[in-house]
């Protein structure tokens, strides 16, 4: 595959961001390669109803 890119003028005004979190990336510039991976888990099993103080391990 041939992929040709021509970068003409790029002018951005002001940027307001509340938060950049959990291995997120905010970049002004050129980059060769980017690999992002994210896993988030909050299944019904993670809701523990009981008096036990230490959190019991589960998948």
């Amino acid at each position, binding site marked *: 595959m041939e992929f040709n890119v021509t970068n003409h003028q790029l002018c951005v005004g002001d940027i307001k961001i509340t938060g950049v*979190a959990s291995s997120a990336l905010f970049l*002004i510039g050129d980059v060769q390669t980017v690999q992002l991976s994210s896993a988030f888990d909050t299944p019904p099993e993670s809701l523990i*109803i009981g008096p036990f103080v230490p959190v019991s391990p589960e998948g």
Partner: protein
Amino acid sequence: MFSRISKVKSLLSDTVSFCSTMQIGDTSYIDGYALALAVQKKSETFGAVDIQFRDYDIFKRPIYIPRLYEPVNTRFSNPNPFIHVGNINIIGISSSSVVGVGNVGHIRMESRVKHIRQVPKQAEDTSIEDSTEDSTNNA
């Protein structure tokens, strides 16, 4: 290869925490990695909890990386060699995040977050008073 120059008027952040980076200038590699166990409990005290990342599958499973099926020949030309950006205001940068100005070679970022909620079994004795009840007596 990289010929563009990033021009930012100002860069402001209130908080940069938990191994986050504010990078100004060109970079060869960025490798960010964050693991988090978020425990929410209904308790007056929140002491040490004996939990380990290895007890949960989400921290063990391999990450998915899409495969390249064919070689891609890329060619860039930059008639305008600048990226102009005005004022940047970021309230918070957290958990191995990166805010960068400049060109970067290769970036790899990974995040794994596990939420756990723990609520007591017994209904608490602190009964909520019904404000609609006996309203005529209060008058």
